[in-house]
């Protein structure tokens, strides 16, 4: 089978949604329950342990807010990339996707610095209930940011050659989902008392 040829199964559309976008929605649906399970566990414990508010007050709100801003901006780049792809401008979409990935990289850098400060204060994964959840939630989210960046750069490489432009929207959808997860993590971990 030629490497780039797609099976007929991939090109059909019984639902009216192209297969690439359809599979992206299912991936997002499954990720909702993964993050949701972890978040639900955290929320239950947090409500049960009001004393965790003391630990939570030590998270660096400025870092969380800055990271929220970075992700929102990178989401903007992602959706502009989608717009460019719709206009069949592959190279422009590729550049916007690369900007989006850069946003993800900046997010990780800020988080790295933030966690360095936290660890220096003595707050590590095993420092207690709140911190265990904090690092696990943010860490799982960070892993998804990394995975998203990798896929995004691969899609950008193809889009630059005006190939597989439909994937620009799909990786964008995934990235917006990662952004929405962070939109909820920010208040839950940083600003809720």
């Amino acid at each position, binding site marked *: 089978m030629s490497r780039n040829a797609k099976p007929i199964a991939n090109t059909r559309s019984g639902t009216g949604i192209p297969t690439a976008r359809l599979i992206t929605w299912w991936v997002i649906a499954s990720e909702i329950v993964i993050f949701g399970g972890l978040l*639900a566990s955290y929320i239950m414990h947090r409500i049960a*342990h009001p004393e965790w508010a003391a630990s939570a007050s030590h998270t660096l709100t400025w870092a969380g807010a800055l990271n929220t801003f970075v992700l929102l901006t990178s989401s903007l780049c992602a959706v502009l990339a989608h717009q460019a792809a719709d206009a069949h401008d592959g190279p422009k979409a590729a550049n916007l996707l690369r900007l989006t990935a850069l946003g993800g990289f900046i997010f990780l850098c800020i988080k790295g610095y933030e966690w360095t400060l936290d660890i220096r204060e003595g707050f590590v994964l095993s420092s207690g209930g709140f911190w265990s959840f904090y690092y696990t939630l943010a860490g799982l989210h960070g892993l998804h940011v990394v995975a998203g960046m990798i896929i995004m750069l691969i899609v950008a490489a193809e889009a630059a050659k005006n190939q597989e*432009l*439909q994937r620009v929207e799909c990786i964008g959808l995934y990235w917006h*989902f990662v952004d*929405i997860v962070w939109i909820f993590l920010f208040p839950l971990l940083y*600003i809720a008392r």
Partner: protein
Amino acid sequence: MTTDAHVHHPNYVKIWAILVVLLVVSVLGSMSHVREIVLIAAFGVAVVKAYLVAKNFMHVNTEKRWVPYLLIVCLLFLSILFAGVAPDVMKHSGLHWSKNPADQTVPPATDRTKNE
């Protein structure tokens, strides 16, 4: 395979600007001493931001109808999970049971937070 331009593209920069303003509102609101304002600033704004991203960036509302239904069903399952688990995990006592280690850690802490 090229894209089928199935969506109308709004002014994305404008949406982004609204999101940033909401972010600022949530940070400022969280500094309040009134608990209700903090909660609304934190979670109310989060819900609005999530809705704006879903609607304008992900184009969920122009997608086939069953897509948002599927996502809502996932949230529904999560709420079933929460409803079934929280009575045991979130509470420290119930009908004929109580959690002693948890009870011992919480009262000193709540005393502390009440005095703040």
